[in-house]
């Protein structure tokens, strides 16, 4: 696993505005203006947040020079989210299965 890239990703995710932007993009692509709408900050400030997300590989931007719509890069986010929860989920599943295994052993 590329730990450096993950660090960049998690640094990008550590800001609530950027997380809100990602949540918005999960519902569909959006332009900077659309993304800036719900926030009490300038379009420029939101644009900076988008650049951070872009560098982290979480967001990609379209080629349309005027609109430059942003799109969620699902794979990068999935890797980041997967890292947080994946380890716990691995063991939770395993321990459930261990319970099944032990129950069978005792019956037999």
């Amino acid at each position, binding site marked *: 696993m590329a730990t450096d890239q993950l*660090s960049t990703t998690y640094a990008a995710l550590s800001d*609530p505005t950027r997380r809100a932007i990602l949540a918005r993009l*999960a519902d569909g692509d959006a332009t900077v203006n659309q993304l800036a709408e719900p926030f009490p900050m300038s379009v420029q400030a939101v644009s900076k947040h988008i650049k951070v997300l872009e560098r982290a590989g979480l967001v990609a931007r379209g080629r349309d020079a005027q609109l430059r719509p942003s799109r969620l890069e699902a794979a990068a986010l999935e890797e980041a989210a997967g890292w947080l929860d994946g380890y716990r989920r691995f063991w939770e599943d395993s321990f459930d299965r261990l319970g099944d295994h032990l129950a069978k052993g005792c019956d037999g």
Partner: protein
Amino acid sequence: MAERREIAMTREYDAPREEVWAAWTEPARLATWWGKRGWHVDPATVEMDVRPGGRFALTSEDARGNRMPQSAVYREVVAPERLVIDEPAADNWHGGAVTTVTFTDLGDGRTRMEFRASIATTEEMAQTAAGGVADTLDRLGEHLTTTEHTEEQSA
């Protein structure tokens, strides 16, 4: 910057402590429960030298043939009470972890298993986790999972 993050889980099993210990330390038994649902372990891939410094390795496989090797070293082996397993980052799908599993005989044929993992992470990752990012990520995770399932069904 490397930091450690703790994850703790406790389970109680309706089985004697020796049974739970055997499930952790006998290759054929471990292979029946190890891993996420949807994955299975070929017992032939399991290597277990259950003593301090001994090697613990196996390979899991899912229905689509994706293989996930894991490799670790036993740090402490106190039968049937305690196992400490060191999983270095280089040999695993995660960033490295030290896991401690403690088995307590509850005296009525049941066993309490306490699992504690100290996971290598970075400062940013730890802060993010502490900052309550979970809700947003959960929602996004649901979205991503839904997308993935849709793709699988249409495939």
